[in-house]
């Protein structure tokens, strides 16, 4: 059984202290010194190669003939600071849209995934609909969905349906991302070994209880990293609703740029997106690393 192994020996220090007077052997001391030397050498190599590569790149960019013009039109920080409040206001639209959309996407995506993985005969029509939905909206570029919903729905002139481009844009984002998230959740559900279901059912748990208490908790834990990936992508893709005329960060930057023909607002908008996406990406990395550690700790059973 490999369950106990592979946990404690990683931190380098001796994991066990059976004997009271354990003396580190000459052999081990020599090994530790050799390891330390090798680490130092590796750090030195990494530093040198980074300086070399990055230095070369920066030199190429800075010495290029158009660099002066470029830094004036893209990196005029004083101007950037001036337009920051307006772009930040637009960016709040992106943040709000992301929050609302991710809640709706979670609910719809989960429903679609559950319907697609259900086996009961009564669900057959819903299963077909869910499969069709996922196929359709995973296969269309989101920009097209936004255009079709944003301009198509108002054209229907149905009473009571909004013409608000912000709402329509949000709906388009939700429609598309629900299809993506449904597939991530479905793969998580299918990844749980059938023996877990068998164990739960043999305890007398109903199909729904098995899903609720045994399958879903494990599936969700497993797909958290890819779901966080989708969240990062969702934040960026909210910028696409600007095509409908929604004043988000992208649109706000566009408005400023068209006034002055200076592209710094675009850079500012990009930095605002990065301020949110980079921390989230790091968080994704961390959860991924944790779930791998957990899996390794679980062994073969």
């Amino acid at each position, binding site marked *: *059984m490999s*369950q*106990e192994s592979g946990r404690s020996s990683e931190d380098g220090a001796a994991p066990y202290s059976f004997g009271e007077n354990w003396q580190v052997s000459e052999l081990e001391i020599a090994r530790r010194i050799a390891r330390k030397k090798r680490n130092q050498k590796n750090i030195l190599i990494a530093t040198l190669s980074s300086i070399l590569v990055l230095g070369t790149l920066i030199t190429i960019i800075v010495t290029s003939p158009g660099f002066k013009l470029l830094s004036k039109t893209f990196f005029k920080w004083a101007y950037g600071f001036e337009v920051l409040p307006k772009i930040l206001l637009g960016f709040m639209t992106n943040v709000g849209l992301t929050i609302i959309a991710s809640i709706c996407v979670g609910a719809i995506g989960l429903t679609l995934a559950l319907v697609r993985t259900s086996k009961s005969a009564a669900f057959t029509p819903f299963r077909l609909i869910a499969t069709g939905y996922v196929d359709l909206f995973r296969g269309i570029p989101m920009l097209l969905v936004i255009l079709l919903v944003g301009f198509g729905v108002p054209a229907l002139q149905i009473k009571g349906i909004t013409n608000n481009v912000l709402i329509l844009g949000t709906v388009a984002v939700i429609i598309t991302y629900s299809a993506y998230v449904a597939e991530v959740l479905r793969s998580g559900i299918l990844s749980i070994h059938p*023996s*877990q279901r*068998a*164990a*739960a*059912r*043999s*305890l*007398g*748990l*109903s199909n729904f*209880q098995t899903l609720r*208490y*045994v399958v879903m*908790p*494990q599936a969700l*834990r497993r797909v958290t990293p890819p779901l966080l990936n989708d969240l990062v992508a969702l934040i960026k893709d909210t910028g696409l609703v600007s095509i409908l005329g929604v004043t988000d960060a992208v649109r706000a930057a566009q408005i400023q740029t068209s006034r002055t023909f200076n592209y710094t607002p675009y850079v500012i908008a990009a930095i605002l997106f990065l301020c949110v996406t980079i921390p989230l990406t790091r968080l994704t990395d961390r959860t991924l690393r944790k779930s791998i550690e957990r899996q390794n*700790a*679980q*062994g073969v*059973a």
Partner: protein
Amino acid sequence: MSNPVLELKQLRKSFGNELVLEDISIIVPVHTATVFIGASGSGKSTLLRCVNLLERIDDGQILVDGEDISAVDVDPDLVRRKLGMVFQSFNLFPHMTVLENIILAPIKVHKKSRGEAISEAFELLSRFGLKEKANQYPDRLSGGQQQRVAIMRSLALKPRLLLLDEITSALDPVLVNEVLSTVRDLKSEGMTMVLATHEMGFAKQVADEVCYLHNGRILEWGAPEQLLENPKQPQTKEFIKRVQEAGRL
């Protein structure tokens, strides 16, 4: 031989074109243990899964306490409340602690209060010497401990019949004993059991009847001393000889 807890009548099961079980008929009286032996692929596991309605049979009948559970209108969830099943690969829920594993079904299936379920679980845990593991996750337990928790999880539902499917096959020899002694305790407390196992010595101790399964049929059956020491059929002889050579009798 009154009160059979389980009765199988001419049970038949196939997967596609492959016939897995044929003409299986047994009677398991209350407080007895019936042990199935046989090579891998002889149908032992499938038989237990059929009884627990995890597989649908092709023909025949399964009676639990005289009630036909193979009838179409039977609710499998209600049947499974009466039957406990323990698997070769433990199948504990890895996201729950030992205690949570044990109390899940009593709370959700038997609708017991959390407090009642917990105190009953602790009773079981201390009886089998695992009280201090109550709040550990399964991956911190040895294989033997995990399997004993799996047995307790089934016992928490107070089943009429316990189905044990090669519960020691995934354990190393040192851990096998602690699991087997747990089963011996259960047997002496009067639990009715059906087991599939490769542990012949254990079968001899615990079984009231041993059935030898060969290619999906019960080739020979009888009292453990008779079948394991004086088998009549040449195939049974051959099988027991092979197991002896492997050093497990």
